[in-house]
């Protein structure tokens, strides 16, 4: 059992059930792996090793007593550092929350702990989840395990990197405009953004409240689904959450209709990405799926609507960080305004400031109708277009990121270039739909992973898992980076 850390969560669960290993052994292996590799990967802002070992020991005790265990019992999980963990620092990778220790657990964390999962640590990210490379962290930039000179994508950069580097089998990410799917794609793993409302947001530090959704990331489809199963469902603490019951998935796409929207295969998407995505569609076709063409004409507007809505909501959500109740306190404290301005100016990074100002601007007097209200109406139109498209198909297949992962520092000075990369992912958040990122090979140019996206109707996560599972079986599993 030398490489317990590299097992899938499903394999770990199997061994635990058979009492061939203990959760403490698994957890120690994972801790050891992180200690050996995290200097290079830099996935974690906070480790939770002492607590993790206690949690693992508690599960082992239950196993010894012969108690029936939930799916995630004894399995190490990494949690993105924007989900509140009681008595464990939660920073959102921001200087603003550098020493913030929540007095409560996010609902997803509470659910995982109830199942007996082992919280191994908190992963780095783009500050307040704003970014798509992981470079906007106030603390550290996680590395892409396939090439550590490259970004892992973002904003769930640490969660993608730690899973791809086989430090842990599964991790939680959050996705406001692609922040689970895009880093999963760039790191060659599976990641899913569930339907808006299927997973509680309570305890997720809000970025764009009407778009944010927590979701699972793993190296295989079964693990992704298993983590999703343990976190989904209505939460009375989240008024936007919905009644949702996890449905089991299959592995056959026979008779499933896949829609291909031409608007997602435009000039902005590199040839190598398009080619791999088309090839994935061929694989699914060979497994019995039907392929139809669909149209989503408002796609071009989605990016604008996304930046208006997410920034407006963020500008309001981040107002609470003022140096008074928690978090960073600025250097000037003479008057209230000085305290506010110095705390916020010193505590937030430039990308966060840009979005707060954009959001403040689009909501300000005289501009509300032209920007925010229009974007919200557009949001409905985009959702309607998806509804129409789903009359012709069961799922829609698209690329995720226009290119493979770029080198650290390559684009971080150009916010507009960074924003343009979100074009394939933001529409789902706008429409509240579920989407899954599935690895589909490597670029011959740089040997970096490429993924494709399957988009479903609301609350059809089971169908997306079915498509992903079928594809995974057809290609004989996904490649794992050895190092």
């Amino acid at each position, binding site marked *: 059992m030398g490489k317990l850390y590299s097992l899938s969560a499903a394999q770990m669960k199997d061994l635990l059930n058979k009492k061939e290993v203990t959760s403490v052994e698994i957890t120690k292996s994972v801790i050891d792996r992180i200690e050996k590799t995290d200097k290079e990967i830099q996935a974690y802002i906070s480790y939770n090793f002492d607590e993790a070992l206690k949690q693992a020991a508690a599960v082992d005790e239950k196993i010894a007593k012969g108690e029936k265990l939930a799916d995630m019992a004894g399995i190490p999980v990494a949690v993105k550092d924007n989900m509140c963990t009681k008595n464990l620092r939660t920073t959102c990778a921001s200087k603003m929350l550098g020493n913030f220790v929540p007095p409560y657990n996010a609902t997803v964390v509470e659910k995982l702990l109830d199942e007996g999962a082992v919280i191994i640590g908190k992963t780095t990210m783009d500050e307040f989840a704003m970014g798509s490379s992981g470079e906007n962290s106030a603390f550290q930039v996680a590395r892409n395990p396939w090439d550590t000179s490259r970004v892992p994508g973002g904003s769930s950069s640490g969660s993608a990197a730690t899973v791809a580097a086989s430090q842990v089998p599964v991790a939680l990410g959050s996705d406001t405009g692609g922040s689970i799917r895009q880093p999963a794609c760039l790191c060659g793993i599976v990641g899913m953004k569930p339907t808006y409302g299927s997973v509680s947001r309570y305890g997720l530090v809000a970025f764009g*409240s009407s778009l944010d959704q927590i979701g699972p990331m793993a190296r295989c489809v079964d693990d992704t689904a298993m983590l999703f199963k343990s976190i989904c469902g209505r939460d009375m603490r989240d008024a*936007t959450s919905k009644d949702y019951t996890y449905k089991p998935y299959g592995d056959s796409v026979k008779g499933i209709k896949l829609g291909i929207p031409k608007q997602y295969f435009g000039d902005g998407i590199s040839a190598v990405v398009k080619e791999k995505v088309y090839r994935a569609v061929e694989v699914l076709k060979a497994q019995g799926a039907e392929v139809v063409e669909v149209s989503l004409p408002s796609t071009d507007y989605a990016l604008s609507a996304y930046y208006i809505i997410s920034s407006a909501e963020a500008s309001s959500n981040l*107002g*609470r960080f003022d140096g*008074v*109740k928690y978090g960073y306190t600025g250097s000037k404290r003479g008057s209230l305004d000085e305290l506010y301005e110095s705390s916020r100016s010193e505590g937030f990074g430039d990308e966060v400031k840009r979005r707060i100002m954009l959001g403040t601007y689009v909501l300000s*007097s005289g501009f509300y109708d032209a920007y*925010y209200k229009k974007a919200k109406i557009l949001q409905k139109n985009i959702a309607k277009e998806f509804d129409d498209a789903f009359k012709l198909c069961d799922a829609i297949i698209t690329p995720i990121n226009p290119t493979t992962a770029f080198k650290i520092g390559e684009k971080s000075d150009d916010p507009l270039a960074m924003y343009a990369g979100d074009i394939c992912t933001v529409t789902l958040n706008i429409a509240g739909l579920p989407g899954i990122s599935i690895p589909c090979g490597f670029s011959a140019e740089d040997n970096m992973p490429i993924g494709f996206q399957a988009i479903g109707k609301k609350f059809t996560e089971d169908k997306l898992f079915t498509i992903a599972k079928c594809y995974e079986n057809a290609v004989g599993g996904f490649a794992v980076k050895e190092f």
Partner: protein
Amino acid sequence: MNSNYEIVVGLEVHAELSTKTKIFCGCKNEFGAEVNTNVCPVCMGLPGTLPVLNEQVVEYAIKMGHALNCHINSVTKQDRKNYFYPDLPKSYQISQFDIPLCENGYLDVLVGDEVKRIGVTRIHIEEDAGKLIHDADLGGTLADYNRCGVPLIEIVSEPDIRSADEAKAYLDTIHTTLLYLGISDAKMQEGSVRCDVNVSVRPKGSTEFGTRVEMKNVNSFSAAHRAITYEANRQIDVLSHGGKVEQETRKWDDVKGRSVVLRSKEDAQDYRYFPDPDLLTFVVPQEKIDRLKARLPELPVAKTMRYMSRYGLSKADSELLALDKNVAEFFEKCVGSGKCSAKNVSNWILGDVFKILNERRCSINDLALTAENLSEMISLIEKKTISNAAGKTVFEVIVDADKDPNEIVKEKGLAQVSDTGALAAIVEKVLANNEKAVNDYKSGKTNVIGFLVGQCMKESRGQGNPSILKEMVVAAIDNK
């Protein structure tokens, strides 16, 4: 007040609702708890927390909407009002912007003997902010978040109010209505009802509004009266000296009796309202709206007018009886017994009962006194079974004990004696002992009759029927 000008006033009343819990979390909604003990991550606005709307808040607000004759919007939402202040931990207040729960209503109030109808623009629900305590020793300010998330309704009137008296009458009526509906403690001294006052003036006969000034920090309804009077005079003074009233927000200082500029129009806040993404649209079913309307009690102004027309009571007495829901209920129970006249019930309640309530600073429901006992006692007086004086003796007992007045009369021997035979000896004795008074009467000072009857009453230990005694005294002197 310069009679060439007319005052125009609009009022914004904030009332805390008396729900068990806060508007968006399960923390207790109570006044006076130790600082920062009724708080949780939600009402303190910790990162990651989300609001969940308390359905009781919606019901209470709809009740008020019905009471003020509003249209109830069954499909509505909540919006964020963004501004930075240390009593507002999220840096936004969850309120309602373009679709208030209730709108387009009115309230009839009594001003003098007139009924005045004042338009109600809207009633919306929102959360209260925390409390800042200024601490001189620390040289800083302390923040207590217990009040954060206490549910509020904001009642906005049309600019229909034309005098400080009208404003006072409107505020008093809002206050009693809140208490009648049982939706707010409406305790001014605890700050559970507060108001902002908008004042402008214009030349008499003008149909256009003058420049409006908003006054903050008006902490009581009598302060509202003073603030309006002051501000109207200030504006009239400015205008009559050829000046221009500036659109601004002023702060009322009730101790000094004047207002000072808080901020000018240029500093007007940009609240950046937008729908709260954490709270979806909410729909109140029409049948629920209708049910709440059907259950609405008769309100104080309607009661006052009914007491006046049905029972012939004065406006002042009717208002006093209707002011407190419990008093009004007590009054109506007494009258409903059919044993005694409304006028006598009103006199007893407003006299002896109110005296006790004032002395004990308690509510009518805190007394052992029952409507049955009081009306029975009054009927005994009306039937002349007992004298008014004996009535007071009975009242002293029944106010603190649920005891049948007939029993008390029997036990204490209070029944009035109307038998002239039994009273003749008393009259004889009193006249014999008060020769001077008898002579005074004979010489034309007829008002001494009261003294002589009083002496007879005393002699009869209060049991003599005073009107019969009077007749007997007069007859006895005349016969002498």
